[in-house]
């Protein structure tokens, strides 16, 4: 099959990772694959290193004539049977290409749960027949697409893959920055950008409640914005600021997980959170909000839950780890469940099956 994988974005994200996995593994399986991504992006750099067929486009804005020219050129040169786009701007621009070229093999992967705005671009791109079908990364995302009027026959759910080689407890994980936690102290870690939907406020309130009852528990927050003055102020209000470590953006998440007793996901909503899957792959237990996507993950991974948005319930959840000892067998079982359910080969096979179900048959 001749397949284009495409998305915009300069930094490394879940979508970039999935597109990279798909392009690399589909090429290894004998398909002709072209990756079309943003010039100068981390993905472009890694794809070039991996020797993948690559074309870059500017992707300066959602409607971008320069990008359209590049995409039209790529389409005419490559003559794909399937174009799989992974983000909003690529959806818009490839939708235009599909309309102009009367192409019926455009497949859109949607990873986020929020409802698209009713702006003119969304109105067209979610209604046009140029999009053959949608791949949702979770049942919750599929439900949201259904609510936009997209019928089941144009929908598939394919869970994203986790990089179980990178997140492997048996591998060496050098730390790139400080983690000032006393040796042997229990550590709870949350990896999430600082955004109201990620639940940092609820977590800090829960930590304030639990801190006195578990005086040696430390909390580390990693992710863009977690070192902001606002969050520093909130951490100070817990009364245990010396045990709250605001790490900011970190590349060495596997090392942070390796140093953690358990990890946290306090989000109000997610597409299908990568941090939960990565923690499981590292054999690190997870205390997660019981939102729809986390409950969906709970069908595959043994997770502990608290009521979404409830600081009291989260505090109880934190304290439940005080008396809980995690055995090596439990850790191994957690990793095995993550590898079994979210491996790259399983995701690639399911995606190819989705192309067959949704897209035109190969010539």
């Amino acid at each position, binding site marked *: 099959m001749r397949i284009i994988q495409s998305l915009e974005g300069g930094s490394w994200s879940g979508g970039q990772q999935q597109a990279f996995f798909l392009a690399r593994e589909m090429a290894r399986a004998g398909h002709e694959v072209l990756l079309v991504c943003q010039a100068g992006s981390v993905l472009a750099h890694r794809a070039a290193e991996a020797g993948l067929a690559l074309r870059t486009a500017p992707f300066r804005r959602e409607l971008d004539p320069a990008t359209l020219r590049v995409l039209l050129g790529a389409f005419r040169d490559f003559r794909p049977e399937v174009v799989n786009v992974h983000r909003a701007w690529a959806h818009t621009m490839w939708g235009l290409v599909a309309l102009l070229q009367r192409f019926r093999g455009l497949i859109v992967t949607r990873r986020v749960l929020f*409802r698209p705005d009713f702006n003119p671009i969304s109105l067209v791109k979610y209604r046009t027949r140029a999009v053959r079908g949608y791949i949702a990364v979770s049942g919750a995302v599929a439900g949201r697409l259904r609510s936009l009027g997209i019928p089941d026959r144009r929908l598939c759910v394919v869970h994203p893959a986790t990089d179980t080689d990178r997140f492997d407890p048996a591998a060496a994980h050098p730390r790139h920055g400080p983690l000032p936690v006393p040796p042997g102290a229990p550590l709870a870690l949350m990896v999430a950008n600082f955004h109201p939907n990620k639940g940092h406020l609820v977590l800090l309130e829960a930590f304030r409640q639990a801190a006195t009852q578990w005086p040696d528990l430390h909390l580390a927050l990693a992710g863009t914005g977690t070192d902001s003055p606002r969050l520093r102020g909130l951490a100070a209000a817990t009364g245990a600021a010396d045990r709250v470590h605001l790490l900011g953006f970190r590349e060495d998440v596997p090392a942070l997980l390796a140093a953690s007793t358990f990890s946290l996901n306090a989000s109000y909503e997610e597409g299908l959170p990568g941090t939960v899957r990565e923690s499981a792959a590292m054999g690190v237990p997870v205390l997660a909000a019981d939102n729809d996507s986390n409950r969906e993950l709970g069908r595959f991974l043994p997770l502990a839950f608290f009521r979404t948005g409830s600081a009291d319930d989260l505090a109880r959840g934190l304290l439940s780890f005080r008396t809980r000892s995690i055995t090596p067998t439990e850790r191994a079982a957690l990793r095995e469940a993550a590898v079994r359910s979210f491996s790259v080969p399983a995701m690639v096979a399911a995606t190819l099956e989705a192309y067959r179900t949704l897209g035109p048959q190969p010539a």
Partner: protein
Amino acid sequence: MSVSIPVLYFHRIGAPDPIHLSTPTDLFDRQLAFLHRRGLRSITMTQLLRHVTSDDPISFPAFAVTFDDGFRDNLTEAFPVLRKHGCRAAVFPVGSLVRPDDAPPQVPPRDFNAAHQAARQGDRGDFLSRAEMREMQNSGLVEFHSHGFSHRQVFTGNRLEGAYPDTDAHWGILSAYGQPLPTGSWPVFPRGPGLVNPAWEPDFARIAAAGRDWVAEARGRGRAAVTVPRDWFRIESPPQFERRVRDDLRASREVFADLHPPGPHLVCWPWGASSDDLRRLAREEGYQGALSTAAGPTLPGGDPFRICRYPVKKGDLARFALGIWLRSSPTLARAYGLVRSWGRR
């Protein structure tokens, strides 16, 4: 030269928000900074109304900021940003959701649905109190007008449309029932904004006594229409409906009458919906204007009871700039209004 004035509307600032009616605080800050950098000046509701009624058309680039529902983050998150930029704004709280002055606020704030569900059970910790409104009003930047008293949805028929809690746990369903729903499954029927639809008030006891698994019925119904008997509802007569609407409009006008400068009383239509009858009743109940959620230009000679607004939701500053541009040009705003009304059909 007459200008179309973008009337921005927000719900929450810096709050957790799975249904995306909240704007991050730093983005809100950048949005106001952008407007001021571009030379736009914020105006009051009185100025906006006088512009629309052609009494005193505004000839300089301007914008208005509004907040719906009266969430407490309007004070804790939005107000410091408004003060920083010297930006005027109007908040439209729901009359029945005003927090008693002696009730503690909810910290940390709940998400949108959870806040409304708690309020249905008497806990209005996520909403502003009158003392907090007074504090904001005393700054001279913020005024308060009506967003209706109940902000109810009502059931409008007896056909099964879904089941609670199998659907999005939207607080509109709770408001249609008019009471908290105990654990279990509850049928969801067609519903609409309470001020434009006569209510089909469900007989709660009868539904509970039926003991049916509504989730299973809703999932299993396929395309077949499933209805329950009409006598499971008390259907409002036209006089009862009018009395309820008048009571709601009057009560909410009275709640906020002293929380805005002397002058016109405005209402922001709950759920964005109005009808000819509702607009007539609002006039008769002492309102001089109303804001909707429709898209379109805000020009002299417009309908003061159908002032269009720009829903500012997620997105980056570039998207916001595009939204402002679309609503500042009368021609583009008209065209955009047509596209959006087509999209909503």
